[in-house]
């Protein structure tokens, strides 16, 4: 039996090494399944919780153009959450279990959404930086080994680029506006820059799962590689806006062909992960309230469906 499992694992690894995708009904090591349930569901929760800081500004958008764009973006994030929950469910966990894990705090979601969105400029910074960082991660994941996850990522990536562009356009408008507007844009960048770098996770040497994730081709680049890519592509974008990235150590390094940048405040990082960020409690409370307040709707829809079905049966009898 044990020998058999070892053969299966070797064959599984060989499939991965050949670049084959793994599909839901294929044999897979229990740890591969568990890792994916955790990662895909965390990703789904992030999309869902990510609606909250932006939803906060829909009713206060400064124009109808901005409002329809933000509304459409937030609606896309709901869709992303749904694609990802479906992908996680292919691994044999139910939607209710997944939701439960979010609501009782056992599941994590991206810490970036535990920061508040204080001004309209934050909608610009979130689209530009947060969606920008998410895109880097998600483009990599379109090549991930688990088929349903990879397909969800392809769909998501197609939708993301509008998110980042609408955010950048908000920043551009503010930076070309009055002094006060430009200050507001700079302030948003100041507050979101470091948390955005944290989105890529701990340093490689503090990320014990990276090696296994690379071996199974769950990820194809390390946290630090992705973070570097983000910094390199974002600095010139800040230059176009005429904004200053809040990092005195940031400078171009000719030898590596990329920017050197300062050290992330890892104490803050772990503190927010552990639940002590400025909005952790509020996000969980809001999700719990939405779930509880929607209970009667879920139940009524089932009751209606059952009644309709029983009518159809009695008619055809």
């Amino acid at each position, binding site marked *: 039996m044990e020998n058999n499992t070892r053969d299966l694992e070797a064959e599984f690894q060989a499939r991965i090494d050949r670049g084959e995708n793994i599909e839901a009904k294929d*044999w897979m090591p229990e740890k591969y399944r568990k890792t994916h349930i955790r990662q895909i569901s965390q990703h789904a929760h992030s999309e869902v919780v990510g609606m909250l800081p932006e939803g906060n500004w829909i009713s206060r958008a400064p124009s109808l153009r901005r409002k329809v764009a933000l509304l459409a973006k937030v*609606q896309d994030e709901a869709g992303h959450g749904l694609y990802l929950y*479906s992908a996680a469910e292919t691994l044999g966990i139910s939607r209710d279990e997944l939701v439960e894990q979010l609501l009782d705090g056992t599941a994590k979601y991206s810490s970036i959404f535990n920061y508040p969105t204080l001004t309209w400029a934050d909608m610009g910074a979130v689209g530009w930086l947060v969606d920008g960082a998410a895109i880097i991660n998600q483009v990599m994941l379109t090549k991930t080994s688990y088929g349903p996850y990879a397909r969800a990522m392809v*769909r998501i990536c197609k939708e993301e680029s509008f998110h980042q562009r609408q955010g950048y356009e908000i920043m551009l408008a503010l930076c070309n506006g009055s002094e006060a507007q430009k200050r507001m844009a700079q302030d948003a960048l100041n507050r979101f820059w470091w948390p955005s770098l944290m989105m890529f996770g701990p340093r490689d040497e503090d990320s014990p799962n990276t090696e296994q994730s690379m071996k199974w081709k769950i990820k194809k680049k390390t946290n630090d590689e992705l973070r570097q890519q983000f910094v390199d592509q974002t600095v010139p974008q800040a230059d176009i806006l005429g904004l200053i990235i809040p990092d005195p150590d940031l400078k171009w390094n000719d030898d590596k062909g990329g920017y050197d940048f300062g050290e992330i405040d890892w104490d803050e990082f772990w503190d927010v992960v552990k639940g002590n960020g400025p909005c952790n409690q509020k996000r969980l409370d809001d999700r719990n309230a939405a779930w509880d307040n929607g209970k009667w709707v*879920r139940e009524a829809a*089932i009751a*209606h469906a059952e009644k309709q079905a029983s009518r159809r049966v009695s008619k055809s009898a």
Partner: protein
Amino acid sequence: MNKEWPIWEIFIRSKNGLEHRHAGSLHAADAEMAIQNARDVYTRRQEGVSVWVVESKYVTASNPEKSGELFEPAKDKVYRHPTFYNLPDELKHM
């Protein structure tokens, strides 16, 4: 009572003349709601002109462990392809 809405598989025809293709799945209380939800989840950018929804429990899938015996017999039947037949170059329209 806490009953989960069943899962539905969603098939979308992107435009007339093309076949419906599997787009993904979602939860809905009944078929009508599944179509509504599919509209919102899978066709926000005009990706479809027609939707089929099928409750997932009615899909029977082939067993991946049997894929050898199911699909490999087609492997050595090269004579099912036009390139198997040797014909002169001057022959046209064939």
